[in-house]
């Protein structure tokens, strides 16, 4: 059975630009471009894409915070446009961003407030909050205001808030963005082992960390510029390029004369990174290096097995994140 069915979901935004005499420049952004996908019951599904891909927009549409322009989604049988209140009841969500809780209130008071919004009685709420604070290891600081918490601790409270009412389906927008490795590890394991494996929750999470999608998700959807590129398991995605190797060259100078090689080039601050996916890199290595040397200086050469990141580059022509390496 499918817990989330997204069909043809489309969302445009108008971005206002500079003001000109009496008019204003307007730019239309297609944040979601006819996206269709299905998430199975009990599945941990990942949306992987770079900045501006449309991940948050998709999550907000599903959470009924945005009304789509076209298409719709059905969540456990309830349509997001026709029956938003029923959808909200069975969804737990964390929208990205740091300030989604009351910083002036303690963790416990935050959770108590949201528990009431989700219809828990005060007895149910107390029990559930105790349980969640324990499991998140926040019991000791539960009465401290969130302004004194670290980012990682606040994110734990955010996730506790999302699952207060024990929802069937959980949407997590970049759950580990900007966290220390220890917190990321804790949360990833919590999401995978506790929520997904043990409690059988259906989870849709967005990320632009390739390893996160790789480690956690049963299936991964690549999104780029509002478009769904491909949906598959990490294994299959990697298999699609498994015969290949990646030739990675760092160099300084002009490498535009490499066009014939289907190379992916990226300008970093101090150097240019060239990546070429090929079945047998040894075969082309000499030629490639020779061409590069014509107009540039080579800093390093590497041959690697392709990662999910390389699959993404191969399919979309863009990299997952700006701060790669």
């Amino acid at each position: 059975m499918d817990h989330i069915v997204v069909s043809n979901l489309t969302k445009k935004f108008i971005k206002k630009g500079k003001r000109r005499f009496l008019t204003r420049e307007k730019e239309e952004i297609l944040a979601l471009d006819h996206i269709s996908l299905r998430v199975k019951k009990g599945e941990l599904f990942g949306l992987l894409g770079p900045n501006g891909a449309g991940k948050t927009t998709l999550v907000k549409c599903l959470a009924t915070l945005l009304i789509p322009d076209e298409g719709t989604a059905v969540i456990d049988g309830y349509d997001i446009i026709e029956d938003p209140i029923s959808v909200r009841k069975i969804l737990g969500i964390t929208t990205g961003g740091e300030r989604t809780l009351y910083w002036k209130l303690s963790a416990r008071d935050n959770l108590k407030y949201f528990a009431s919004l989700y219809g828990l009685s005060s007895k149910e709420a107390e029990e559930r909050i105790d349980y969640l604070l324990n499991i998140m290891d926040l019991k000791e600081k539960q009465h401290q205001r969130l302004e004194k918490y670290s980012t990682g601790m606040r994110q734990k409270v955010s996730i506790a808030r999302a699952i207060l009412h024990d929802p069937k389906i959980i949407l997590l927008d970049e759950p580990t963005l900007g966290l220390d490795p220890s917190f990321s590890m804790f949360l990833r394991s919590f999401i995978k082992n506790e929520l997904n494996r043990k409690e059988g929750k259906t989870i849709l999470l967005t990320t632009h960390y390739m390893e996160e999608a790789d480690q956690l998700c049963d299936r991964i959807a690549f999104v780029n510029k509002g478009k769904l590129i491909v949906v598959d398991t990490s294994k299959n995605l990697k298999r699609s390029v498994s015969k290949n190797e990646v030739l990675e060259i760092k160099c300084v100078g002009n490498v535009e004369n490499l066009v014939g090689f289907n190379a992916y080039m990226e300008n970093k601050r101090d150097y240019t990174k060239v990546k070429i996916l090929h079945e047998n890199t040894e075969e082309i290595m000499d030629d490639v290096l020779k061409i590069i040397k014509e107009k540039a200086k080579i800093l390093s050469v590497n041959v690697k097995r392709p990662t999910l990141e390389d699959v993404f580059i191969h399919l979309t022509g863009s990299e997952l994140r700006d701060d790669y390496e």
Partner: protein
Amino acid sequence: MKMNLRHYLRAINAENIKEWKIELTYRVDFIRGLFEPLFYVLPAILYGMAIVGGRYSENLEKLTGTGNLITYTVIGYVFMGFLETAVWGMGFALRKEQWYGTIEQVFAAPVPRWVYVMGMALHSTMHQGLIIIMQSVVIYFIFGLVLDISGILPSLLIIGIMMISLYGLGILLSSLVLIFKEGWIISEILYSFMIIVTPIAYPLAVLPSILQKISMYMPTTYGISTIRHFLIGESLGFSVFDAVLRLLAIGVLWVIFGLFIFNIVDRRVRNKGELGTY
């Protein structure tokens, strides 16, 4: 359905409690807020006394049937405080959530929007109630007020009915500030306008006739005058029954209009993705 009502009432109460908790973390500001209105009412009283040369004004008596300018002005100012509830308390509740960054999380919860509105109304009314009690006590000790005790209960009833309209106004403004960056200007203009056309410190008779006409559409006009009628015997240009009827009619209209605009704004921000932006 019964389950839902329980859930909604709980949510309204939680909203109220949350607002108190946040407010009380700013202690100094909270205390300042309790006493601030005194600084508006005191000059009006003292100015009046200086001009008239005492607390009794023959002219006021001729116009309103009651000549004690202190009680007249104090009652006007104190109860006009409930306009603050609507304009600043409720009007900015959602804007504050935007500013905290919590509005999307809050709106993702399974309660209809009117539940938040009721929660805001409950909190800001209680807050204003506290301010009014503080003011009344202080003024009582400074000037000594003589009121008709038997008028207190009917006055509370009138306040209750007047609040319906003010909640309508609060609902309207709370949504408008979500789409207009400078929403406070709308609030400020409406607020000032209502202050002018409501007989707070002066009787209606002193206003230009056009403003007097407009005044007859303001809930505060009926509210304040009728309260004074019960407490100090101000003579009314209408019957108490008429006042209640008109208050109810204005109340229903304003609430319907407020909810109507609120819904339009809610759709608009969800269409344009403006909800979380501040």
